[in-house]
Every structure is written in C-alpha cells, then in structure tokens.
C-alpha cells in the first residue's frame, strides 16, 4: 500500500514557536525514508503563501498524491492546507496534520524528547494519510430564514440587520418584552446617551418589520438537522409548540447579574439602602433618587467588583461595571449636586474608546475614589445614633493603609455579569459548548469570534462573555454578516465525513438504529438492512464502533486509518515488545 503512495511531508518551524524546542531537520531525516514518502522538507512558516506554494509546486513536480503537514493544531490550519491541496488539484482529504506545536513544542521543555514525540506524530500521520481516500463534496440548499434567540440589544441588532437585507427572521424571546438587560438601564457610558433611545429605535424597527416574526414568552426546545437545514421547535409558555425551518441560528441569550446577597458583609438584603446597580438604574429611570424611606441621600457609596475578580465568586472582570460606576458619578451629581459620591474600587478599568475621558470627567466632579484590596470587600453596617448618615461602609483603604468609615445613605453594589442558569439547556439544544464560567465558546478567540462548534450556529453579545453595548452590537453585526454570507452562497457544502453502511455486511440487527442520537439511521424491513442518511449524520462514529458485523465505515475516520495511526505513534517507542 505505502509503496504505491507519493507522500509529501512538510515540517514547519513556525518561526521559533516549534523550532526553539523541536529539531525539525531531525524529524525530517527520521521520516524521509519511510515507505511512500516522496519528499520531506522543513520550512519557516508552512501556512505562509510561499509555504503553501512550496506544497503546490511539489505536488506538480513530484506528482504527490498525499500531504502531511507537521505544524500547528489542525483546528488552526487544516482548512488552510485543505484549500492549498484543492488549489493544486488534490482532494482536500488527502491531507493529514501532525500537531507538533500546541500539543508538543508549546508544552514540553526537553528538546530531545519533544523532537522524538514530533517524529512519532509525523510518522503516524504518514501511516494514516497512506490510507486516505478522496471524498467527494456533498451540497445541500441553504434555508435563508434565521432564528435569533434573545431579544436584547444583540438579538435585536441581528434581526434588524438581516431583515434590512431582505431576509426572514424568527426572533425568539423568553420574557414578555424585548430589550433584555439594556432595557433595565438609564443612561449609557461613556457618552451618557439614553439606553431607552438606543433601544426604542431597534424595538420599533423589529416590531414593525414584516420580515421579523417576534415571538415573546417562547423558547427553542429542540433543534434537529444541520447547517442550512435546521428544523427548530419553538415552545410558547402556554405549551403550544411550533416547527420552523431555518438555515442559521444566532444565540444572543445574554447574562444575569451576580446575586449580591452571596457576599454577606456587603449587607444586601439586610439593609434596605444597600441596592444593586440595576436597582439604582430603576430609580434613575423613574427620576426618584431616594433612600428606602423616601429621604434624599446626602452620601452615596459605590462598591466596585461585586462578585467579579474574586476567587470565591467569579474570577473574571465583568468589564462594564467601572464605566457604569463612573457614569453614576455624573447621574447622581447632576440630580443631587450636593451629594458626596465615593467609589470604593480595586482597579479602575476604564478601557476602550471614551473610557479614560469619562474617568477624567468623573474625577473632576469631586467624587472620591478609595481603593480596597482585591477580594477584601468593605463591610456595611448601620450608622450609630448621632451620625448624619444611615450606613457606614468600613474599608481598609489600600493607598493610605488606613481603616476608613465611609458615610452612606445609599450603598450601590456594582454587581458583575454571570452566565444564565439556563445556559446549559441552550448549549445542549443547539450543540455548542460552555467555558468553566458558563459562557458560550466561540470557534476561535481571535479569528472566529462569532462561530461555534456547530456550523450554522452563531453567538453574539454577553452570552459569549461580559461586554459592553458597542462590543455586543459589533458581534451581532458580525453574526448577521456570517449568516448573509451563507445565504448569498445559497448552498452549503456538507461535511464529507459521514458514516456508511455496507449493505452486504449488514446483518440487520438494528443495534445502530437505537444508538444514533440524530436518528440518521433508518431500517428497511424488506431488505433487512440498516441505512444511514448522510445529510443527517454528524460523523460521531458511535455506530461504527458498535456494529458487531463491522459493516459501518466512518469516512475519513476508518478503522484502517486509525489503526495505522496507532501503530505509527508507537512504531519507535522504546518499550515495544
């Protein structure tokens, strides 16, 4: 088998990313004489244009029929090199990558052992690629209608963008109103424009556009099918279910605020005048900045980082709280010019466009900034008789080293953002993953920020991680652009990696029928054979491993390919019997 192949092997230095630990030349020398290898080379950056051109030229000159690239993770550049193969006239599946960067040079210090491992992985890739077969493309039409989950600022933006471009949108909102968390806010940082104005325009556009079907008090309860061809089940609060055909799903399910009562010393739930930032927003929107018993506060104390950047609660920064707190300085001072506003903060993170300006302007308002040690929250207690305030906030002030009792009639807790508790249900329904904090994971943190592990499912806004309105809108418009790109192409190339039943080997035991989570396997009672609908198959391979007759083949993950790879990684191991 091997001798008939003409394999080109390319070992990437990735600048110094691989070369500083792995001796690529040594790897090349070890694999160059393996059966089937027609040429083996090293290069600085295989993914660069000259690197790809080198492969293309070798394919022509050496009549190569298979390519191994030992470089970064296939999750990074499998697509790039697959395209390079196609451009040079080879089927994209005649490629195998050996991951010698993420899973080798970046995690090992011992150069000799890392080089030996890289050689093993490259050897395995050569053995595997020799068994690769060209797989033909399958195409399916792309349904232009899109489902948007969540009617907050991100979801509204996606819906309006798509409808503006002439496409049909189902906007599904769990609550009884559109607007999401932005609908609970008064002004927005850093330019102090009204959230109501920003939102009202989007809501009117969404509700008045005949191409947007707004469904309130509804959730997505089931999603079947595949990219471009999903069948969604939307269930209304009253139990009525509806089936919708959509090509794409954009998840914009947002966030929940941190539950401040979890931090006892802050006194939330104990003292009526300790309120969360959202409760302050409510009072600001109502134009009634008062204490619980209707007095005008003379002292307002704002505690930053409530639930954020703390090992016990959430370790991440919620990104918007510092800016929102600075905004409160303006709002409180303009409503009550004589009030004394104190910010108790850890670090002032006024990042982004206009952020530092807002910080400067707030400083000039004669608000006071007191720094507390990270994770050492201030303690809120009732003031004593004779004090001219209702509460005292005891803070270990970090810069002066003193313990200070800050007077307060109103204590505002800047509650951070956390993932919604129903996030796991959403993730499971649409087939995406969550990180350890519960935020949905994008395909690539830098290069694919709105795509997900499931093709045709996109994410935007705070369900991906805490972010402000401009960032949410940017992601929403990016998602809309991705969807429009799919619609413009009009069809979708279905993964050629699916499972196939060999009817001659199938005994008709139907074990696989029950195993398939996608009901892609049908049974023909007349023939007494099972059969797989390739468009529904997602190529997990569970049926392949279970078939007692060995009648099912996982295309591109065949038994032969995997067994060759296993032998390949072990061929040079010292302990082989």
């Amino acid at each position, binding site marked *: 088998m091997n001798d008939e192949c003409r394999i080109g092997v390319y070992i990437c230095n990735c600048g110094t990313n691989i070369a500083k630990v792995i001796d690529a030349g040594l790897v090349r020398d070890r694999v160059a004489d393996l059966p089937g290898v027609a040429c083996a080379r090293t290069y600085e950056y295989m993914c660069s244009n000259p690197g790809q051109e080198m492969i293309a030229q070798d394919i022509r000159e050496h009549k190569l029929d298979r390519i191994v690239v030992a470089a970064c*993770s*296939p*999750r990074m550049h499998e697509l790039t090199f697959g395209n390079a193969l196609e451009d040079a006239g080879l089927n994209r599946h005649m490629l195998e990558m050996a*991951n010698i*960067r*993420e*899973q*080798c040079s*970046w*995690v*090992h*210090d*011992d150069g000799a*052992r*890392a080089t*030996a*491992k890289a050689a*093993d*992985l490259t050897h*395995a890739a050569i053995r595997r690629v020799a068994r690769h077969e060209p797989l033909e493309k399958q195409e399916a039409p792309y349904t232009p209608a899109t489902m948007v989950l969540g009617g907050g600022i991100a979801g509204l933006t996606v819906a309006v963008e798509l409808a503006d471009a002439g496409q049909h949108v189902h906007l599904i909102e769990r609550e009884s109103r559109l607007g999401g968390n932005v609908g609970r806010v008064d002004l927005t940082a850093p330019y102090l424009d009204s959230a109501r104005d920003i939102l009202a325009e989007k809501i009117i556009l969404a509700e008045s556009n005949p191409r947007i079907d707004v469904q309130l008090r509804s959730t997505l309860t089931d999603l079947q099918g595949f990219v471009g061809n999903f069948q969604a089940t939307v269930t209304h609060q009253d139990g009525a279910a509806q089936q919708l055909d959509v090509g794409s799903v954009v998840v914009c399910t947002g966030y929940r605020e941190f539950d401040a009562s979890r931090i006892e010393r802050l006194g939330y739930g104990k003292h009526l005048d300790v309120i969360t930032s959202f409760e302050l927003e409510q009072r600001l929107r109502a134009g009634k900045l008062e204490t619980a018993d209707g007095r005008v506060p003379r002292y307002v104390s704002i505690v930053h980082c409530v639930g954020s950047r703390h090992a016990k609660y959430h370790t991440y920064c919620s990104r918007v709280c510092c800016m929102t707190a600075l905004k409160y300085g303006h709002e409180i001072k303009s409503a009550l010019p004589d009030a004394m506003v104190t910010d108790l903060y850890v670090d002032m993170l006024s990042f982004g466009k206009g952020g530092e300006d807002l910080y400067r302007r707030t400083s000039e308002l004669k608000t006071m900034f007191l720094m507390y040690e990270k994770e050492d929250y201030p303690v809120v207690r009732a003031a004593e008789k004779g004090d001219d305030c209702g509460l005292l906030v005891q803070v270990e002030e970090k810069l002066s080293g003193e313990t200070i009792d800050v007077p307060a009639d109103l204590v505002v807790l800047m509650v951070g953002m956390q993932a919604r508790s129903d996030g*796991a249900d959403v*993730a*499971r329904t649409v*087939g995406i*993953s*969550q*990180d*350890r904090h519960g935020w949905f*994971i994008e395909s690539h943190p830098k290069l694919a920020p709105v795509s997900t*592990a*499931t093709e045709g499912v996109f994410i935007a806004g705070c369900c991906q991680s805490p972010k402000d309105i401009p960032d949410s809108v940017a992601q929403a418009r990016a998602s809309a652009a991705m969807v429009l790109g799919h619609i413009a192409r009009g069809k979708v190339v279905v993964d050629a*990696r699916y499972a196939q039943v060999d009817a001659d080997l199938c005994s008709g035991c139907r074990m696989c029928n029950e*195993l398939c*989570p*996608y009901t892609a396997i049908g049974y023909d009672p007349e023939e007494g054979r099972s059969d797989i609908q390739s468009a529904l198959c*997602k*190529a*997990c*391979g*569970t049926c*392949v*491993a*279970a078939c007692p007759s060995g009648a099912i083949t*996982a295309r591109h*993950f065949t*038994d032969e390919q*995997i*067994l060759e*790879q*296993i*032998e390949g*990684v*072990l*061929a040079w*191991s*010292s*302990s*082989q*019997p």
Partner: protein
Amino acid sequence: MEFEPTIVGFLCNWCSYTGADLAGTARIKHRPNLRVVRVMCTGRVDPTFVLKAFRSGADGVMICGCHPGDCHYLEGNDKAFRRHQLLKRMLVAYGIEEQRLRLEWVSASEGERYARLVDTMTAELRVLGPLKLAPDLGRPPGPCPEPTAPREVAHG
C-alpha cells in the same frame, strides 16, 4: 535511566482535543509521554483500538471525552463509558492492569486538567513499569498453528 512509559491518548475532537490545544496555547507544561490520536467522539473508540495500542507497545491508554451531558454528539461519551467498564474487566482477564486504561472527561476549557492528567498517568505508569504481555498476545498474528494431534470426536 528511568523508565519512560508511552501512552496513547484517544481525544475527542470537540472537547478534549481542544482542551489539549488550550494547554498548548496557555503553555501549560506536561510530560511528553502521551501521543494523541484524534477521534470525532469517544463513542468512536472501538475497543479494538485500545487492544491494538497495547499490542503495539503502549504502556497505557487514556481516552478523553466531553464531560457527561456535554457531548457534542449528545451521548457518545455515555457509550464510551459503558464500553470502558466492560473493557476494563476484559483487560484484567488478559493480565493487563486496570490502571493502564483510563477514561477521563476533559472539556475544551480544561487545559490545566488535561496537563495534570497526562502527568499523573505518566507517574503512575512509571511505578507500574512497562507493560508485559503474554508472548502470544504480543506476537503479530501469523498463520494458525497446526494442531498437534487430530481431535478425538466422540460418537455416542
């Protein structure tokens, strides 16, 4: 020289392979003893893959998949779990210690966990020593040996 075990890791494409990549992106150092074989889902791991790895010289096998309930394919990891239970019993019958096969859940965000799993399994196998298969098991399959004497068939 201290014994360095070789481990074959079957990692699912969606959670664990991504988690192993994350260990790289975050430069979380770990032992270089494990060789990864990527599969789409742990449900694809045919028990014969594991047996093949042991027969080809692996001292240990680690199967890593998505956490229960998080499988990209809904429930492939459940299938892997059930097969693992059976396979462990079978390995023991072959004289292969139970510790040589591990099934672990590693999510896409658990680079640190992945690195520590590789380290602990390497350390355990170092103590356990190289896998010693019965000669028949380690030998590549050849032609069937001739029976030494014709089998007596009792007629009754």
